[in-house]
C-alpha cells in the first residue's frame, strides 16, 4: 500500500461535467489523502489552474458544455506554465480519446474502476510534481501508457 502523500504535494484536478461522477472521483481520492480540485467544464478548469497549486495531473472529461475537453487541452498546451501538466482523459468513447492522444498522457474508459484510478495517482503522484514533469516533458507521449494502464488495472489492490 502506498504511503499517504502529503496533501500539498499531491493535488488532482478533475474536469468533468457530471456531478455524480465528479463527486465519486473526489470521494475516493480524498479518502486516500489526495487534494482534489473540481471543475464542471474546460473553462472552469482553466480558472481553477490559475488559482491553485500546480496539480500532479488532470483527469479530463471530453464532452462538456461551455468548453469541451479538446478545447481545454488546446489552451493548456499553449500556455507555458501549464503545458507540461500530465492529462489523463476519462471518456466512454475510446475513439474520441484517441483523437487527443498526442496531447495526453493516458486514457481511462468510463465507467472508471477504482484500480485504474489508484494506479493513476500512484503513477503521477509518487514523486514530487517537479520531478514528474522533468521525466515526462510535454509532447513526448509515452506509447506504452495505454498498455500500462490496462495491466495496472488488473493488478490486485496495493
Amino acid at each position, binding site marked *: 500500500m502506498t504511503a499517504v502523500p502529503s496533501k500539498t504535494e499531491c493535488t488532482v484536478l478533475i474536469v468533468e461535467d457530471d456531478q*455524480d461522477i465528479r463527486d465519486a472521483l473526489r*470521494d475516493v481520492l480524498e479518502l486516500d489523502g489526495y487534494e482534489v480540485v473540481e471543475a464542471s467544464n474546460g473553462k472552469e478548469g482553466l480558472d481553477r489552474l490559475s488559482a491553485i497549486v500546480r496539480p500532479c495531473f488532470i483527469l479530463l472529461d471530453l464532452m462538456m458544455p*461551455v468548453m*469541451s475537453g479538446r478545447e481545454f487541452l488546446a489552451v493548456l498546451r499553449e500556455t507555458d506554465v501549464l503545458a507540461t501538466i500530465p492529462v489523463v482523459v476519462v471518456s466512454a468513447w475510446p475513439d*474520441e480519446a484517441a483523437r487527443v492522444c498526442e496531447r495526453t498522457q493516458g486514457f481511462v474508459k468510463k465507467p472508471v474502476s*477504482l*484500480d485504474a*484510478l489508484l494506479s493513476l495517482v500512484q503513477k503521477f503522484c509518487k514523486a514530487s510534481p517537479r520531478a514528474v514533469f522533468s521525466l515526462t516533458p510535454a509532447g513526448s507521449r509515452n506509447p506504452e501508457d495505454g498498455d500500462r494502464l490496462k495491466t495496472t488495472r488488473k493488478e490486485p*489492490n496495493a
Partner: protein
Amino acid sequence: MKTSDDPLERASILLVDDRPSNLLSLEAILSRPDYDLVLAGSGPEALAAVLRREFAVILLDVAMPGMDGFETAATIKEREQSMRVPIIFVTASVYDMEHIYHGYSVGAVDYLLKPINPHALRAKVAVFVELYRQRKQIERQAARLREAELAAERHRHERIEYAYRESEALYQRTFEEAAIGIGHASPDGAFVSVNRRLCEILGSTRDELCGRRLQEFAAGDDAAALVQRIATLDVGQESYHGEHRLTTAGGTQVWVALTLSALRTAVQGDDSRSVIVVVDDISERKQLELERSRLLRELRDGILARDNFLSIAAHELKTPITPLRLQTASILRDARVRPDSPMSRETLYQRLESIDRAAARLESLIDRLLDISHLSVGKLTLEREDVDLTALLRNVVARLRRDAEREGASLTLVDAPATLIGSWDRLRLEQAVTSLVANAIKYGRGKPVEVGLDVEGDVARLSVRDHGIGIPEEAQARIFDRFARAAPVMHFGGFGLGLWTVRRIVEAHHGRVTVRSSPGEGAEFIVELPLPAAKGSPRPNAAAPRKREETRP
C-alpha cells in the same frame, strides 16, 4: 352472253350491179330469212355501203360503167375495215378470170359466170356466209375469253386494292389508337403527324402540335440535349432512349420515356430523314419511384437515428455506473485494507447516499427509456383531471432551479396568470415542461431561462425561452422527430427523444408545439394547449371524474 345455241346470226350480203333487173334477180335467188341483202347500183354506192356495215360476202358485177368491179374491189381491199370481206365477182367474160386472181392477196376472192346458176350462187354464198359466221363465233368467243380474263384481272386488282386499303386503314388506326404517343417529325424536330395519345400527353390538339418542335416541350438544358440527340440520329443506327421531363401546353410537368429513331423518307431522296418520336407517359411510375426512394431514405435515416440513439442510450446508462462502482469498490477496499480503522459512519453514509443517487439515476434513466419505448410502440393514455397550469409551471421551475443555478443560469416564471385551470394529464404535462426547461438549461450557455404562460382566446400558450446556442434553421423542422438532435451527438448527453416525447404529449392533448430560434440567440419553444369551454374556472372541481383518453402515435 351469247352461246352457240343462239339462232343463226344474221348475215349481211352486198349485191352490186348497175342493172336493177340483175339486182332483183340476185335478190330473188338469195332471199332467206337469215340474210340481209343490201343492194348497190354502182361502185361508189357499194363503197358507201361497206363503210356503213360489215358484210359476210359481196357479190360484185365486174362490168359497170364508171367505177367497174375490179376498181371497186381494189378500193374495198385497200381499206383496213373491209379488206377481209370475201368478194364474188360476177362476170360474163372468162377473160376476167386472170384479173380476179391477180392482185388480191388478202381475203377470199371467187367468181361466178353469167348466166348465173341459182344453185351455184346460193351454194357459194352459203359457204362464205358459213365462214363469216364461224369467224364471228370465234371472234365472239375470243371476245368473251378476253372479257373473262379482263374481269379476272379486274377482280384481282380490286382485291389487291382492297387489301391495300384495309392494311393502310389498319396501320392508320393502329397509329392513331396506340396507347403510346407516336409522331413523325422532320429532322429539326417539328411534328409532321401525331397520334391521339401524343396529343393527350402533350396537352395539345393535333393542329397545335403539328409544326411545333419536340424540344419546345423540354426545359433549358434538356431542350438543347434533345436537339443534339435528334441531330445525331442516324438511319439504321440505334434508336435513342431516354427519360425526360416535359412541360405540357397546359403547364403541367410530365415524365416521359422517349424513343427517337431516324427514318429515311424515300420520296424525298437519300438525304431526307424523318424522325419517329415515341412517347410514353411514365409520370406515375416516376412518382412511385420518387415516393419509394423517399420512403427508403426515411427508413435509412430512421435506422441510423435509432442506432445513434442506442449508442447514446448505452452511454447515458453507463454514466451512473462510474459512481456506483467507485463508491462500492472504495468501501470494500476500506473494509479489507483498514479493518481496524473503518471509515466513519458519516463518511459511509455519504458514500451510500452517492450509491443510492446513482442507483436512482439509473432507475430514472431506465424509466425514461421504457416510457420512450412505450410511446414509440403503443398508445399514449391521458389521465385527464383539472390541472392548474400556473401551479404546475411554478413547481417545475422550483424543482429545476438548482440545476439551472449549477449551470450559472437563472430560471424564472414570468407573466403567468394567478391560476389557469384546464383538463389535462398532470404527469404528462409535467414531463413535457420539465423536458423543455431542462433542454433550455442544457443548451442555454448559463444565460437566463424564462418560462411564460398566457391565454389567447381558448388556447393556453406556454413558452420556454433560453438565450443559448439556438437551433440552426435547417434543424428546426426535424428536432421534434424521433431520435433527432440539433447539437452534435458527442457534445451533450441525453437520449435525443425529449422533444419528440414533448410533441407526442402535446399532440395527445390536441395542442401543438413549435420553436422560434436563430442560432446564437437562443430558442423559444411554444406549447399551445386548447382550453376546455369551462376554462379559467377559479374553483377546481375535485369531484370531477377522471376521463381516460387514448391516442395513437
